[in-house]
């Protein structure tokens, strides 16, 4: 009988039930979409912030200062270098998955035809790597110098063009009258080579007075085969906290469990530490300009999204609550009648609750999927990638819908219980 009454209620009141289900679906979709976006926004913004370039720089242990200092003096001291064949190891560290990009650099001086001396940097442009993990990666300055403006020609496509090409900074290009397509001769300390200019770039920095060539070309003219002088690494990191700061000072000062937490969290300092572990005689340090700012902006964005999510959750909750109250109150007449024919309060409460809960479940399920849709719209429109739906969203939305619907029923049920059938039936309520 109970089931029959509920079925009847659905049939008779399908319009109202549809409206309740619709509102609950709206609320649930709002909650799902906002929670999903909120939980994923950190990762997404982190990727976007990679536009600022490397947040970790790796240099040889001993040579760093001395070589540069002596450079000023006489310009010819062979410092220490990092080994090129170790570069692949960066993608094997614990947080390898968080390393999105990196590029080695080697710097040398070369003389142009006209006799002027320029700084030549060898690097990867879009170096293709097949990693032991089976992963494939294109790494290099094309993605790590996203702010470079190519004012003539195009990016040097290493995979297509090979190593006999170069890119020239706008400062040199203007001074020497170099344009794309032209061939220039670079005379290095050990060898000289003819290179075709693939493009001219405007970096808005000192790099405008440098020439960029593929790594092996620079090694060849400088005679530094198999060596690199620095590596820039772009990694997804977790904003620093107290523990990370303490570890950055000295990992040895941590207790074993602290060390484990630190090592297994993608702090910039733990990634640096892990890079030092795999690259022989290296010092990896955070580029504070990028690393610190990144953390700050990530934190702020996440905080902002959390607050907006809280607001929309409250909005959705109150909205559902309200509608449930309104639609149950609307049925006072029918419920007065049920009381008149002898239904007890618990029976009526049970009936109303079951009805509303069935509606809530239907609405909630529809809303959940609609919410995933909304999240994907946001993801694709803003970040051009899908939003990952975390498993955590499901229980949160379920609990939210149930609790909110129940709360919405409370005032209505209280009112229904205090109804006196005669009043309702005589139209006095």
């Amino acid at each position, binding site marked *: 009988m109970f089931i029959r009454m509920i079925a009847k209620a659905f049939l008779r009141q399908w319009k109202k039930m549809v409206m309740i289900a619709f509102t609950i679906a709206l609320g649930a979709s709002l909650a799902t979409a906002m929670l999903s976006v909120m939980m994923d926004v950190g990762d997404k913004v982190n990727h976007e912030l990679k536009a600022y370039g490397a947040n970790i720089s790796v240099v040889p242990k001993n040579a760093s200062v001395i070589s540069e200092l002596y450079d000023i003096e006489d310009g010819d001291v062979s410092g220490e270098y990092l080994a090129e064949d170790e570069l692949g190891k960066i993608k094997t560290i614990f947080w390898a998955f968080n390393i999105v990009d990196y590029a080695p650099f080697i710097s040398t001086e070369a003389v142009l035809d006209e006799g002027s001396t320029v700084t030549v940097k060898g690097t990867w442009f879009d170096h293709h790597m097949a990693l032991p993990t089976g992963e494939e990666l294109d790494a290099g300055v094309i993605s790590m110098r996203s702010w470079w403006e190519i004012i003539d020609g195009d990016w040097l496509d290493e995979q297509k063009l090979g190593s006999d090409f170069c890119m020239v900074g706008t400062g040199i290009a203007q001074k020497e009258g170099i344009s794309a397509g032209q061939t220039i001769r670079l005379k290095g300390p050990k060898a000289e080579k003819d290179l075709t200019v693939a493009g001219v770039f405007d970096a808005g920095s000192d790099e405008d007075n440098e020439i960029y060539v593929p790594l092996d070309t620079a090694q060849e003219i400088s005679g530094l085969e198999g060596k690199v002088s620095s590596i820039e690494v772009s990694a997804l990191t977790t904003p620093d906290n107290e523990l990370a700061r303490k570890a950055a000072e000295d990992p040895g000062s941590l207790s074993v469990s602290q060390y484990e937490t630190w090592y297994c969290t993608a702090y910039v300092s733990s990634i640096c530490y892990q890079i030092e572990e795999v690259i022989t005689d290296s010092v990896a340090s955070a580029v504070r300009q990028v690393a610190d700012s990144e953390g700050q902006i990530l934190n702020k964005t996440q905080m902002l999204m959390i607050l907006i999510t809280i607001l929309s959750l409250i909005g959705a909750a109150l909205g559902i609550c309200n509608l449930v109250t309104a639609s149950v109150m609307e049925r006072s007449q029918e419920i007065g009648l049920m009381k008149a024919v002898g239904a007890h309060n618990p029976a009526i409460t049970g009936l109303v609750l079951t009805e509303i809960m069935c509606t809530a479940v239907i609405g909630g399920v529809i809303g959940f999927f609609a919410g995933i849709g909304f999240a994907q719209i946001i993801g694709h429109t803003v970040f051009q990638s899908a939003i990952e739906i975390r498993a955590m969203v499901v229980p949160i939305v379920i609990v939210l819908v149930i609790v909110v619907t129940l709360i919405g029923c409370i005032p209505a049920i209280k009112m229904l219980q205090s109804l006196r059938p005669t*009043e309702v039936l*005589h*139209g*006095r*309520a």
Partner: protein
Amino acid sequence: MSTLLELKNVSKIYGDLHALDHVNMKVEKGEWLAIMGPSGSGKSTMMNIIGALDKASEGEILLDGEDIAKKSAKALTNIRRDKIGLIFQQFHLVSYLTAVENVMLAQYYHSVPDEKEALEALERVGLKDRARHYPSQLSGGEQQRVCVARALINYPEIILADEPTGNLDEANEEIVVELFRKLHEEGTTLVVVTHNPEVAEVAQRTIVLRNGKVDHESINPDFTGKIKHITLQ
């Protein structure tokens, strides 16, 4: 006496059901008519059609010599407003308005609300001291008396009452019946739809409906049209 309302061959058909089946009927000005019949005989349909609340499927309805059967919904609304006073079994008072405000509501739609006049109308039904009460604070009888006041406030040509005593106890029933008697005395045309013989008995004439047709008609031989002595509280 002239004819106020005349039904000629009026039918109301819902699907296969002939709720009214070629009914002919006349109501004279100033007449007090009761319409009786068992459930499903077409009483309510008749009431709705006379009250311009619903349209007939076929036939002519002459009110004041004017055929209202083919009028638009808007025109029917105006007819209700100007010529008809309605009293319902369920009272249908607006719950958040006081008694006097409920009466004024009818004035408001008809012409201009006049609180003094509305209070006078309540005084006529013996509710002057309850004018500021809400429907929920009034007894069933009192609520129905407010409805009567509301129905007569605009001096309608005809007052239609649909089971006016259906929700009332005997004492209140008597009070309402006395009110009708008083209205009749003053020359108001009254049509009362009821299945209560006691209420029908006091009318001048009774029409009995059965299966959507006029089964028979009877004139009340004892009808005096005089007011009994009762005191309204």
